[in-house]
């Protein structure tokens, strides 16, 4: 009976450890918090909380994708709608979850970001399915900084002029992306037609 009580008490104790441990700094608590976080991540539970931390965004960045085709054409892709219409207001009904992925893909423009890599590969496959695969997709970031409340109160702009910057190129005909497109065509033969 006592053993059963002990085992029962271990369940909430383990849950509390699972909730608290991933939030602890590894430099002070060693590898245990990370190990527990990795186990939880397997079932998509993340216990690292950091909304608007350490600061809220002070600029908004959208991606701009420009596709270059084999015949020399250059065209913007559907991602650019957000760039054109994303500076006003947003409600739940005009957001899709793809916008969250694009947001992640914009992180760390100056360093490697796997979320961006997979997003751009996905774009290559998507465009190939539509029958017009680009050769290269150029990803730019367009950033506008928010004016400080003091500046805005004195008549300054609430959003700065746009700053455009090339982030990376995705080669849709290169090894891994081409393999993705080929495999996708093999799996979905109807998409060729």
């Amino acid at each position, binding site marked *: 009976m006592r053993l059963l009580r002990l085992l029962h008490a271990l369940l*909430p104790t383990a849950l509390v450890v699972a909730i608290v441990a991933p939030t602890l700094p590894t430099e002070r608590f060693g590898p245990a918090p990370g190990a527990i976080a990795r186990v939880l991540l397997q079932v998509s539970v993340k216990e690292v909380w950091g909304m608007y931390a350490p600061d809220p965004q002070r600029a908004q960045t959208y991606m701009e994708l420009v596709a270059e085709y084999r015949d020399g054409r250059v065209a913007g892709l559907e991602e650019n709608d957000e760039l054109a219409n994303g500076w006003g207001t947003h409600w739940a009904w005009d957001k899709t979850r793809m916008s*969250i992925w694009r947001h992640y893909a914009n992180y760390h423009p100056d360093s490697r970001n796997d979320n961006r890599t997979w997003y751009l590969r996905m774009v290559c496959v998507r465009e190939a399915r539509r029958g017009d695969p680009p050769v290269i997709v150029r990803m730019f970031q367009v950033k506008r900084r928010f004016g400080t409340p003091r500046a805005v109160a004195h008549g300054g702009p609430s959003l700065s002029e746009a700053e455009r910057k090339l982030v990376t190129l995705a080669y849709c005909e290169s090894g891994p992306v081409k393999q993705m497109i080929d495999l996708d065509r093999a799996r979905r033969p109807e998409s060729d037609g």
Partner: protein
Amino acid sequence: MAEATSVAPRRGALAALDRVVGRVWLDPEDPTALGLLRIAVVTVLTASLVTHIGAVAEYFSAASPLAGRYAREAFPSRMSLFFIVEAPWAVQGIFGLGVVAHLCWLVGWRTTPASIVAWVVWVSMVGRNPLLYSLPDQLQMALATLLLLMPTGRGVSLDARRLGPRPVPVWCRRVIQFQVAVMYTATGLLKHGPTWHKHGTALYFTLVNPYNRHFDIPDVLAALQPWVLSPLTYVVLWWEICFAGFMLWQITRELAGRPRRWPDLRLPWLGFGVAMHVGIQAMLYVAWFSPLAIASYFAFLTPGEATRLLARFRQRGKQDVAAGLPSG
């Protein structure tokens, strides 16, 4: 004699420890509060799930441009049924089953199997492409997982009507309280930037972000900054940081038998939280975070309060029905 005197205190210590463990975790309580918590949280989970309709195949099946082994390669740390089952019709079928499971979980019919199916569907969706989910969505997975591990069907449910009321251990509400407290306090401690601590401009910058603002009113917000937003920035920050202290205060107060000199802080503390989340929901698009956070506050109701709340709700329903009946 010596043996007897040495054993007696040990027994006493063990008994005391047993009592502490009992009061903190294991003592049984009426299941109504946990039942109400289940209804509140699962209502939001169901609403959130339903908003995927129309995009299920595009997000989670072979119809997604990121599919097959490449999807698995992109998200190697996650588990998902949709890495195995990929046909769009099958994924949509599993999703449909998930919606039914949520409804069963909500009304508490076959609660345990329903919650398992509902949870597997969430794990599969988020695991299949975690980049479709943002920080506020984390709370969904955390609460769904915790509720899965609790006997939430024992109160305010069809199962309870069928099997009769059965008590639940007190740890169920406490663990959810812990989850809520960790979420706020951890976030508050990580907010160490100058907009929170030095300039008091964090709320202003949050509300003017065109990524998710509902209203494009930077001039109004700038005018409100010195008198409203700046003080509120500090209040929100310290409210978050101190949330763990509030939770410990309340638990200790409960363990001490709720003495009069130990004030109950729930109404002002959680009332501020509700007001803050209603404000966030009104001003920003943050997916389902605000309703879910408010739903989680049901964990702070005592069983007695939950029972009274439910009785009032039922009474009101009866009165409404009576008022609607044709006279004569």
